[in-house]
């Protein structure tokens, strides 16, 4: 899976989770988007795990705070 494909999928799942369109080039952070609350965050992590077939530890869940960090973490986990 290429970085762009991961970025596209993350943007789409963020859109589903936050209930608004997130575009590929947009960098979203938990601090900048009030809709990204703790429930939405857990839901997003569960959807990322479903989609990419990866698992996040408790520490990783807490550490992921932006779309860029998520893309990077998935790249590392999926070995792309």
């Amino acid at each position, binding site marked *: 899976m290429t970085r762009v494909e991961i970025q596209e999928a993350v943007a789409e*799942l963020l859109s*589903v*989770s936050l209930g608004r369109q997130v575009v590929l080039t947009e960098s979203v952070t938990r601090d900048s988007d009030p809709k990204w609350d703790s*429930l939405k965050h*857990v*839901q997003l992590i*569960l*959807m990322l*795990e*479903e*989609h990419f077939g990866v*698992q*996040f*530890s*408790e520490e990783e*869940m*807490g550490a992921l705070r932006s779309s860029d960090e998520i893309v990077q973490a998935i790249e590392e986990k999926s070995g792309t």
Partner: protein
Amino acid sequence: MLLLNTIDDDVRATPSLKRADLLRLIEPPNLSQVHLQVHRNYAFELVGSILPPFLWLTRLKSIIAYGAYDDTLSFEQIDPVAVQIISLDFERYGEHANSVDFGGWFASRLENLRDLTEGPIVVSNWPSESHHAQRFNLELEKTADRLPSVFVWDTAEIFRNMGAEFFDERAARAKGTRLSNGACIELARSLGLVRLPSVLLPRIKAIAVDLDNTLYDGVLGEDGVEGVQVSAEHEAIYKELMRLRDEGVFLAIISKNDERDFIELCEKRADFLLKPAHFSASSIGWHPKPEAVVRIAEQLRIGVDSILVVDDNVGEIAQLRAAHANTPLLHSQSPAQTLFWLRHYPALNGYRANSTTALRVNDLEAARQRDLLRASTSSTDYLREIQIELTYTLNSMSLRGRLAELSQKTNQFNTGLRRFSEVEVARRLEEPGHFTISVGMRDRFCDSGIIGAIFARARGNQLVIDEIPVSCRALGRSIESSMIALALAPIVERHGLREIAFWFCEGPRNLPARTWLTSFTGVQNISDGGFTTVAWEAIPQLKEHLGVPITSQWEQTTG
């Protein structure tokens, strides 16, 4: 019936359903709100957030209120109009949950909640293999049977089906729950498709199934009896249909075929487990499906909106949808999908069985036999010939579910339309001076079970009748007046009452009740939303009503 009327190629039936698939679904318009109040000690939000897409199929939009995590179940600020949901992680109670006292404590909390609200209470059981959990779940079933309008949500069954995948301890603290994502999805699916609809909606009364490419693969008229294919999934469909029939849901065939071919299929194919006797109605011929479903409704004496039609032909599904906007429809696209929906179709499963529901299927054939007899005998001979036996029970708590069902669902012969809830019925059963009578009926053709109720109370020298609902299955034997007079007579005499005051409320379909009340009381102008009062001794033909050739007895209250 409030269902969205067609379930088609639906993501909600996918075995490995994903959270994102559900959250991508778009809310349909014109949904009714249902308020849910959740009492929990874990992050139920991960279930609640994906519950709406399932409830949308029943045209409901859930408004969920969550309290703080509360292991003690203190039930503060109860919303009286909400469905109450209790869902606990029992492992949080540690060794306390394993003690004998725990079940008693939990039952007392349920009793407390029951006292605080009249709405339905849904309580999840304990998903665990431990013998403590199994003992707790058995006790919970008994408590739910004892308390009105309390329904167990069988999460233990989902746990048994999923095994180790039910829990995911990996990030339990971050998620707020030990439940896996898959378990959350299955719990939402079970709550939204089965448990809540069964609490909130009347049950679908019949399933009309197509034959070709629905009950087998192939076309009977072209492939022949030996040419159609029956798979293991088809056999599972037959068993599901027979299970539903055993629970009182009528089965019918709706098919463009030659009836002789269907009979031959039943006779020659041992693997086609369904037989003509399993079907209470049929329309096998070349009628358009919208007309065929009307024929089936007439045979079953029910409305077309109470029949779920299962058909593989998208064109015929579209015709049905256009002609009968409120008839629930299932577009059968594969045996696996049909099987899933027979187990999960909203308002079809999850209903509490009572002694009367399973008797309905036999009642229809008996009604046909009665009609034949009536046509060939005088009315007095007819009553003697059919050998009616009425059994009355006074203030029986064990019948409260059936009594409430009669009050809420009976439309044609319902004098008061008071629509008593199970909680209200339970209260009346315990209230001094209130008389709640159940009427059981059997005749030489069948046992119809509890088919009527009388909700009465003493007021001075009057017996006030708040409501009399009689199931339409009991009508047509011309014994309504006798049935009611025989029930009232001992109460009037024992309590020295002189007058009967019938509350009457007119509804869209209860003309039969008004007609009966006019005839029974001799009062021509029945007041709508008021009392019609008549002296007991002045009831026209009272002696004749009490002297009809039918057997009646009073049964001892069992609980």
